[in-house]
């Protein structure tokens, strides 16, 4: 009887959907518990940071880190998890590529400070109070908060990562796949995949999506999702609805397109490209608004056409902005 392995779950800047993904193992949780003990998981178990820090290096078999790295706390524990765990998995889109929290790279700390604590419609803050890394109350008690970084980072920007599990959150099927791999490793000694593997398909979502596609995709006109009803059988792009399928990994079961909603790319890009945004940009620009009079179109007409694509940055990098080539929005000299 193989010895049980140990598992730890730690979150960074996360929505905790990835912890819920594990709770949603449902009855398969028992299968997991037969082969593994969960030794650290703040959402579920009363083990505190001190206990984690005291665990010997490499004493935890597998660590799942979900969430992006956006403050000193997130990073500190990324390092601690790396130390204590033999295998570290970047679990979920945020740890993999920054995820939705990564969109904060479109703005700056200053803008956010001002907005949240002073400028929202319901904020009442005449003194301009802001949260502080170190503060003292009226009696002199000292209180600390983690330092917030200027940039949102993915897990492998700060530590060495063994495996990546994409999607937001990883689907039950993906989880069962991982459970199968872990079980085979524990009970049969089967080897784990090569280090650095993204545990998902190398094909794009279009391969998995069941919708009908024309011979060649041609997007005559772009509609925003609230502007028309969707044909549940036809490819979204063919219908003029922006869908990130061509730039996104398969492996999630194409659940969104099954629910009659276009893909927004949470699985991230395949290994064939270096980033998701450029991949989608290329694909879309190549098929959008193609006409017979391509040769007569002026630069202005083309610019106007492309200006119909609202928010390419926020759309094509919805889940992957920190891992894009440029990584964040900047402030440039006025020309």
């Amino acid at each position, binding site marked *: 009887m193989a010895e049980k392995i140990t598992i730890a779950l730690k979150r960074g800047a996360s929505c905790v959907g990835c912890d819920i993904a594990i709770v949603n193992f449902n009855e398969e949780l028992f299968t997991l518990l037969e082969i593994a003990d969960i030794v650290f998981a703040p959402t579920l178990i009363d083990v505190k940071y001190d206990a984690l*820090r005291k665990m010997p290096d490499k004493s935890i078999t597998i660590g799942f880190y979900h969430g992006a790295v956006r403050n*000193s706390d997130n*990073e*500190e524990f990324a*390092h*601690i998890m790396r*130390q204590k765990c033999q295998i570290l998995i970047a679990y979920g889109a945020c740890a993999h590529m920054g995820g939705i929290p990564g969109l904060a790279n*479109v703005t700056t700390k200053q803008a956010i400070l001002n907005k949240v604590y002073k400028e929202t419609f319901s904020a009442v803050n005449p003194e301009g109070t802001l949260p502080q890394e170190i503060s003292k109350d009226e009696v002199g008690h000292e209180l600390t908060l983690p330092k917030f*970084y*200027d*940039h949102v*980072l993915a897990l492998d*920007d*700060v530590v060495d990562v063994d495996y990546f599990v994409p999607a937001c959150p990883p689907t039950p099927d993906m989880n069962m796949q991982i459970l199968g791999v872990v079980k085979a490793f524990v009970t049969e000694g089967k080897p784990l995949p090569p280090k650095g593997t993204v545990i998902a398909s190398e094909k794009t979502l279009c391969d998995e999506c069941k919708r009908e596609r024309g011979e060649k995709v041609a997007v005559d006109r772009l509609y925003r999702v609230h502007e028309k009803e969707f044909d549940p059988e036809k490819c979204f792009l063919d219908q003029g609805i922006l869908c990130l399928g061509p730039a996104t990994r398969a492996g999630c079961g194409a659940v969104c397109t099954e629910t009659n909603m276009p893909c927004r790319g949470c699985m991230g890009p395949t290994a064939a*490209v*270096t*980033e998701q*945004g*450029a*991949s989608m*940009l*290329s694909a*879309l*620009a*190549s098929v*959008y608004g193609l006409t017979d009079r*391509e*040769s007569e179109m002026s*630069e202005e007409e*083309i*610019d106007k*056409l*492309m*200006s119909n*694509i609202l*928010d*390419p*940055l*926020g759309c*094509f990098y919805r889940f992957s902005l920190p891992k*894009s*080539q*440029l*990584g*964040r*929005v*900047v*402030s*440039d*000299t*006025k*020309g």
Partner: protein
Amino acid sequence: MSESFTPKILIFCCNWCAYAGADLAGVSRLKISPHFRVIRTLCSARVDPEFILHAFKQGADGVMVLGCHPGDCHYIGGNYRTRRRMALLKVMLLQFGLNKDRFHLEWVSAAEGEKFAQVVNGFVERVTRLGPSPFREIKEEKQRETIAAAAQAAAAQ
């Protein structure tokens, strides 16, 4: 602006038109700023937006793509694709906050040595005036934050 700033500029030239035009400019001994490097591709359509983003990430202060005039592409329709992609890329680069003068698409034929010189000199001048790309610092900024935290974590062990 300090006169010692030399911009890093990358120019993608298509083999059949732009690169030939660049050669002609050279052979004609036209005066051209030296502050650029050329990457030759067979067609301007080979220039993936990824390359341009990567160039800025690596510290380019300005990037240009030069290709055949629409209708004259050696591969018939390659540059039609190019201009669409670059048009959308321009929108996105603006969203990233880059000044619009740091990226430019232009058509230069094999016979247009003069135009090549003009276009390049104009671009170098504009980019020099803008100064270093804000993306030059980003990599270092990120590392500064994270290294500090690593030292802290190590010290706390």
